[in-house]
């Protein structure tokens, strides 16, 4: 068992128990900055934890980050741990992190799909979806990134419960999704929302469910360009960016389409690296470089949100 955040091995993959234990250690190490809140429970009753980074104030404008909504994308959860640690360590050291946290809160959900993640560690490393039972089918789980109320059930999602992109019986049917929806609505002051996935080295902004460009397309495109340039500056990792539908394919019911439609202008999704043709089986030695380069892009987005209030 890891004993402190300073001896935690960030260059290794960890189970959900280890990650949850580490979150408690991070809170213990930074009690005046980091707290842990529970925003709900998963289908199998695992707690849905969010780390809150705050230097005070009441209902400040906020940035949301999440990793690992597709459980088999282990590099995202691992990047999440490294990033959360970085935020805590850099406050008071890095001027941009300090500036962000002096005026905004950051909420960070490191394991967005804990049931699926636990299942990837115990039974099926390749599991992608949630673990909810579909009454009409022998197939288990819903793709939580097709379950949001944004073009729900449209093209780019499947109505077949056996498909990896099954959208579920209705929007927000998955408690893992509903918990975030309720949190975002109740908070009411989230200004940036970044959902991190892997792999294929892309940075997206909305939309995925329609080819109609978002009204803020120009600004989001410029931020993406800057973020990708910052990311690539570290190790030369090649990223593409653009709207979901124009860059990869039509996908309905996606996270950031919903957040954008809720009024969160700075809504982005990452697909992290696979520079070595490993796909979801990225070797652990690539965790830290991946997190380091992603951090540079995240800072661009977070700083932009901080410097451009709306």
């Amino acid at each position: 068992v890891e004993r402190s955040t300073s001896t935690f091995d960030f260059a290794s993959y960890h189970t959900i128990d280890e990650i949850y234990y580490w979150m408690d250690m991070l809170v213990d190490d930074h009690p005046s900055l980091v707290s842990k809140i529970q925003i709900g429970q998963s289908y199998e009753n695992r707690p849905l934890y969010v780390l809150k980074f705050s230097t005070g104030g009441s209902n400040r404008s906020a940035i949301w980050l999440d990793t690992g909504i597709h459980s088999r994308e282990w590099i995202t959860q691992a990047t999440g741990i490294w990033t959360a640690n970085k935020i805590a360590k850099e406050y008071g050291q890095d001027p941009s992190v300090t500036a962000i946290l002096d005026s905004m809160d950051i909420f960070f959900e490191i394991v967005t799909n804990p049931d699926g993640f636990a299942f990837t560690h115990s039974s099926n490393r390749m599991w992608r979806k949630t673990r909810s039972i579909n009454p009409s089918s022998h197939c288990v789980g819903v793709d939580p990134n097709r379950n949001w109320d944004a073009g729900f059930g449209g093209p780019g999602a499947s109505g077949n419960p056996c498909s990896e992109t099954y959208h579920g019986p209705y929007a927000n049917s998955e408690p893992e999704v509903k918990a975030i929806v309720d949190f975002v609505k109740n908070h009411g002051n989230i200004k940036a929302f970044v959902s991190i996935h892997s792999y294929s080295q892309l940075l997206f902004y909305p939309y995925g469910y329609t080819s109609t460009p978002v009204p803020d397309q120009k600004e989001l495109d410029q931020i993406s360009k800057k973020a990708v340039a910052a990311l690539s500056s570290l190790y030369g990792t090649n990223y593409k960016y653009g709207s979901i539908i124009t860059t990869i394919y039509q996908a309905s019911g996606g996270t950031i389409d919903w957040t954008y439609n809720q009024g969160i202008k700075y809504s982005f999704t990452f697909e992290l690296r696979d520079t070595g043709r490993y796909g979801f089986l990225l070797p652990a030695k690539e965790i830290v470089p991946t997190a380091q380069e992603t951090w540079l892009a995240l800072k661009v987005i977070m700083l932009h949100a901080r410097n451009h209030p709306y």
Partner: protein
Amino acid sequence: EQLFVGDQVLRITASDEEQITLLRVLGEQAELQVDFWRHPTSPGQPADLRVPFPSLQAVKIFLESNSISYSIMIEDVQELLDEEKKTMTKSRR
């Protein structure tokens, strides 16, 4: 625990829209139990497909008979999983 011995991940590059459509059809054949890690998007862009060992021959014949180019991205998925597990155990120690 599900094992993936002999499963391969193929990196497939469709040259036109017709081949992309064929790949989508391939993905919908439930009996093959293939799993797109990276979906086919546009001509020239790679798609990554995990193919269970028992379906490998059928999938490769399908690709070759339709002149869809591919390479083997991961030779044996289970080998990588074993390596991953070993690294985690070492880290815990």
